[in-house]
């Protein structure tokens, strides 16, 4: 698990809310810091990969899928680059 500075919990939220909320959280994060986004939306794995291709000043460091109470969690690590 990569190091991170802040966590955003978007469990239950469906497309496009994880992206919209991450955008807001990233813009409030200091440059260079890492945001951990925890989602239950399976589509968010591909969504964040596509998101960072266009979104400016943000990079996707890692993604992982973890099990929690029999539920799949999709965890994304985003760094604000500028």
């Amino acid at each position, binding site marked *: 698990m990569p190091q991170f500075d802040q966590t955003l919990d978007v469990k239950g939220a469906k497309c496009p809310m994880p992206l*919209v909320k991450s955008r807001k959280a990233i813009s409030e994060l200091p440059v260079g810091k890492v945001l951990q986004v925890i989602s239950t939306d399976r589509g968010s794995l591909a969504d964040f990969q596509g998101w960072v291709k266009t979104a*400016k000043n943000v990079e996707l460091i890692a993604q992982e899928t973890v099990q929690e109470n029999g539920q799949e969690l999709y965890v994304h690590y985003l760094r604000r680059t500028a």
Partner: protein
Amino acid sequence: MTTPMTEAVDTQALLARIAELEQRVAALEQSPAQGIEDRLAMVVFSGDLDKAIAAFIIATGAASMGLEVSMFFTFWGISAVKKQKVFSGKNLLEQGFTAMLPGKLGELGLSQMNFFGAGARIIRGLMKKHDVASPEELFAMARELGVRMVVCDMSRELLGIKDEELVEGLETGGVATFLGDAARAKVTLFI
């Protein structure tokens, strides 16, 4: 076989060629992609709930990616940005249109399987059950993200829709308003 003399000439020509190409690259970098911006422009022509949902999801998603988003509401699509029905001050035909058309986003029907509004209610129920943001929430989110919303004034007048029937704070414009944004956009959609 090349002599050392011609080799020197070749190098000279090559260097000149490289210098010329460097200049052209610099010129292109000054105006990347000939004025294409990180921008999405869409026409919302349909007054169907399912298509409005798609339009607002794409708009909010694009805005979250840092694209400048413009939505141009025309013809039946204007129903998606109405807030109420007003009958006073309209002629009979306009009153007929007002009666027949949805009075707000909440009254839009599906493009298929609508069954006089039952289908739309079922889809809304399913969206709620699956924690998908409601059409109204998506609309509010789009506005919060600074999505530009323009209502086509020509079709608004044609359908007899009054300004007080529309949601506050929308812009009015025409085809050139849309094309002004679309001509610079990376993505254009007609929904």
